């Protein structure tokens, strides 16, 4: 077979060490369902409280914690991870790949996600977890919530963003570079297409969340004043959060759209209507999603013209959705619709989303938003879109691919029962909330006339919850007793159905390729003759565990952090030193990245997301500076000398790192070692000079909390300095290896990739220097 066999599924070792995309998919699935249960039970608890006004079943603090963690978990730890459970399992199969491009990084994303969630759960048992709403508005979350649980929860989110970044890079590279021969980008199955667009949105949206969390954590832990000062404060957070938050809505939805499209084709027995129009519409939505955040801020007093511009973009983004959903519906004409469970959920989800979409137009109207903002109308609307369109759509996907994942059919009868309970429960729960639009969100106390609507909603919540119990029972029972499914139980046309259920390690017997639009399998597995592929590694788990311990220490005991950092260093070395073999198939469709190898593409992808991180941090600086009435003149607070020297040093180091690469290519070991050492020395000098500058400022009493000029300076140069420091650690590693003779005969690429990172860090400084020192 050309690959090491995995230990059996009954072995714990397999689940802790696996890097196989199918296993990782199962891990994501089980974990997201666990968080679904936690977040769902929280919802039932506060729905009970809401069954009558003034019940003191939950204290106000407990109530606020319940709604906050419910929202955060559902959006970030349930719906998206559930989508990525399916994506992990299905995307490589749909494109004919043997695995994701970076199997170990895939396992790493999973473990980071898990430990991020564990941090959020732990925060529950500390003094007050996040109780500020999932939107974490300011300055409530900075100056007015001095609780340790808020810190821990926030750090959990930071770990999640790390997971997301690793995962998005992996999917981007996989979908661009691991497609079967003949599978053009435009011919991707719709689910894979939607995952591609989702990860591209995630790639540029999540760094904004990370930047927001960094600024927030810095305010809370170091005392900077980004959100506690009125010049930054509430509005700065709104801009950052919703720049992430609105794309996030589509990030949650898009994989479900892919599921709907694939299941519509399979069960209506017809090609998708307007496939190219749907794809174009989704691309347009993905682009415009970064330009609509202001519609969450209509009432904050932003400039009326800006507001009108956001109305226009909001309307512009609604029209592609019309095209997508009408195309879905038109697919059903002249069809032969088989109403199996996945199709029922797809149709139900479409109907629910249509209601969510229409009510979204209400909120896009500023005049109505004046009144609807902060009410149950909004709650109803986003549950119809995210829970109805997103979650219910993904349930269709779960049923659709369950036979592929397990090799067994589920009970159709129980599937239908769940569908009926879902539709009744969902609409009983959320439709009354539209009618209760006069009720403020996030309050346990309301007027008596709204009691009946709230009680119907509470009962609906329990029916909706029960529908999941039916699903759990169905899926568990069928695992053992279901009918064998065979390869292609639905008669579908996409590639994931053209192999065994569940697929073997390596996915296909032979290498799939499309010749003249028809599937053929050529030769044996591409691995024949090569080295055995690896499928097990303990380091993803170790790295994540170490990061978790280090972050947990920040809110408990700094010694724990020290231990965590030690473990982290050990794990990084273990990860880097491990011999892990995974190959891309030799035959494959790679347009437009035929000439860019997978590591290079991964680095470029990662660096492009870093641009957003620094873009947001620098924008925050420009924002608060513009909003401030006074600002120290150049040269008065920060010493131009220090900055100028550092600019010179860092630019020189860009040159030396380029020379190191040139030396390695020309086979000069001395040159490689020498220029790497020079780069290391220059970088170290940069940090030393930075330290000197900071120490001087601290000596003069200028600290993190000395107003916005100081806060923004320390934070921005601090984050940049951390990037330099990370680069130095990598340089030490490269230098040690170069001394042993590496990179001279082969492996120049490693230096090239490092060079990209180093140049990027230098370029960021080229922006920081004039912005902070000269203007």
């Amino acid at each position, binding site marked *: 077979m050309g690959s090491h066999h995995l230990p059996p599924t009954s072995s714990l070792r397999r689940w802790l060490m696996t890097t196989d995309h199918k296993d990782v998919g199962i891990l994501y699935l089980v974990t997201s369902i666990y968080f679904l249960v936690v977040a769902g039970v929280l919802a039932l608890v506060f729905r009970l409280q809401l069954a009558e006004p003034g019940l003191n079943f939950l204290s106000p603090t407990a109530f606020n914690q319940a709604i906050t963690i419910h929202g955060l978990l559902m959006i970030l730890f349930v719906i998206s991870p559930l989508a990525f459970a399916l994506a992990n399992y299905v995307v490589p199969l749909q494109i004919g790949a043997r695995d994701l491009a970076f199997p170990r990084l895939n396992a790493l994303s999973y473990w980071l996600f898990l430990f991020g969630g564990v941090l959020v759960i732990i925060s529950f048992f500390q003094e007050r977890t996040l109780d500020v709403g999932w939107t974490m508005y300011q300055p409530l979350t900075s100056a007015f919530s001095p609780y340790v649980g808020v810190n821990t929860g926030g750090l959990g989110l930071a770990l999640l963003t790390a997971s997301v970044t690793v995962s998005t890079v992996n999917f981007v590279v996989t979908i661009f570079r691991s497609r079967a021969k003949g599978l053009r980008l435009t011919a991707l199955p719709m689910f894979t297409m939607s995952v591609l667009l989702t990860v591209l949105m995630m790639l540029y949206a999540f760094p904004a969340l990370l930047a927001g969390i960094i600024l927030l954590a810095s305010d809370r832990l170091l005392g900077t004043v980004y959100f506690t000062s009125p010049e930054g404060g509430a509005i700065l957070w709104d801009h950052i959060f919703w720049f992430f938050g609105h794309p996030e809505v589509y990030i949650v939805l898009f994989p479900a759209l892919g599921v709907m499209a694939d299941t519509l084709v399979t069960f209506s027995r017809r090609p998708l209507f307007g496939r190219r129009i749907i794809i174009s519409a989704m691309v347009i939505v993905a682009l415009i999603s970064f330009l609509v955040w202001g519609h969450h801020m209509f009432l904050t007093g932003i400039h009326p013209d800006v507001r009108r511009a956001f109305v226009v973009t909001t309307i512009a983004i609604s029209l592609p959705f019309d095209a997508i959903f009408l195309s879905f519906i038109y697919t059903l004409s002249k069809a032969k619709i088989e109403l199996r469970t996945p199709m029922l959920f797809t149709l139900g989800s479409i109907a629910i989303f249509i209601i969510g979409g229409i009510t979204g137009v209400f909120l896009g109207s500023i005049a109505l938003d004046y009144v609807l903002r902060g009410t149950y109308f909004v709650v109803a609307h986003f549950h119809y879109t995210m829970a109805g369109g997103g979650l219910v759509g993904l349930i269709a996907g779960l049923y659709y691919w369950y036979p592929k994942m397990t090799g067994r059919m589920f009970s159709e009868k129980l599937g239908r029962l769940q569908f009926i309970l879902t539709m009744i429960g969902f609409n009983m729960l959320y439709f009354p909330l539209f009618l209760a639009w006069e009720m403020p969100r996030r309050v346990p106390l309301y007027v008596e006339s709204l009691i009946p609507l709230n009680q119907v909603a509470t009962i609906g919540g329990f029916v909706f919850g029960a529908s999941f119990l039916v699903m759990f029972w169905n899926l568990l029972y069928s695992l053992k007793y279901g009918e064998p499914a065979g390869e*292609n139980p639905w008669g*579908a046309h996409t590639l994931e159905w053209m192999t065994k259920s569940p697929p073997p390690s390596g996915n296909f017997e032979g290498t799939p390729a499309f010749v003249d639009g028809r599937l053929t399998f050529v030769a044996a597995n591409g691995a024949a003759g090569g080295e055995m592929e690896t499928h097990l590694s303990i380091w993803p788990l170790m790295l994540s565990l170490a990061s978790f311990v280090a972050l947990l220490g920040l809110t408990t005991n700094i010694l724990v952090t020290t231990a965590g950092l030690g473990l982290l260093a050990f794990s990084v070395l273990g990860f880097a030193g491990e011999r892990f073999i995974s190959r891309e198939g030799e035959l494959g469709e790679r347009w437009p990245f035929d000439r860019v190898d997978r590591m290079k593409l991964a680095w470029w992808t990662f660096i492009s997301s870093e641009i957003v991180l620094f873009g947001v941090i620098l924008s925050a600086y420009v924002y608060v500076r513009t909003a401030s009435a006074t600002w120290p003149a150049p040269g008065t607070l920060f010493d131009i000398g220090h900055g100028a020297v550092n600019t010179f040093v860092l630019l020189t180091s860009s040159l030396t790192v380029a020379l190191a690469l040139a030396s390695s290519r020309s086979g000069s070991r001395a040159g490689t070692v020498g220029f790497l050492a020079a780069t290391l020395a220059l970088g170290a000098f940069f940090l030393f000079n930075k330290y000197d500058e900071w120490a001087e400022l601290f000596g003069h009493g200028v600290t993190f909390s000395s107003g916005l000029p100081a806060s923004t300076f320390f934070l921005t140069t601090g984050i940049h300095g951390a990037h330099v420091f990370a680069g130095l650690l990598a340089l030490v590693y490269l230098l040690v290896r170069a001394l042993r003779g590496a990179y001279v005969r082969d492996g120049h690429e490693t230096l090239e990739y490092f060079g990209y990172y180093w140049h990027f860090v230098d370029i960021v400084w080229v922006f920081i220097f004039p912005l902070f020192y000269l203007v």
Partner: protein
Amino acid sequence: MAASTVEIFNSLWTVFVTLGVLVGVVVISYMAYLVVRNRARPGRPEPEDVPKPGELPREQRGAKKLLISVILSATIVISLILITFTALDVLDRPPADAFEVKVVAFQWGWKFYYPNGYESTGELRIPRGVPVKFYVTSQDVFHNMGIIDLRFKVDAIPGKTNIGWMRVYTTGVYDIRCFELCGDGHGVMIGRLVVMEPEEFESWYSSLTVS
């Protein structure tokens, strides 16, 4: 008589709800109709263009049908937004002769400052039929001043003053509630708005002694 801000909202709301329900019912019914009509029954043949296993995706063409539907929905949405902008012209322009009140939100209540310097906490009195303009801010966290019965809402943000206005023709007592989560007391951050007959208001207002 100039329209009250409540009426402006209500007429807009009616238009949106009518069209929204209409579009929703038509689209979902059409989908349900297709599903029922085209469901797999014994004897119903497979469509000729059924995608075969291992085939690359094809598509159903029908740009015209889609174009017409999208233009139709775009027309509806764009006209709704144009109506909105018309309403906004009124809602965003407080009359110059408005009675002006400053509102400061705090954890967890409302303070009101009248033009004559009188302050009160928790209760605000205004005259019926007279435009009232609010300058709203907050002394601590992000709040939102909402009087839902009067279709009125303004964000209360520390360091920033936002403006809203209303004209009410019915006397009575209305709840002022917070519509942005602001901490433990968010649910009970309730003030009272008392709309009085102009003469009653006048005699009350002129009797106030300001320290």
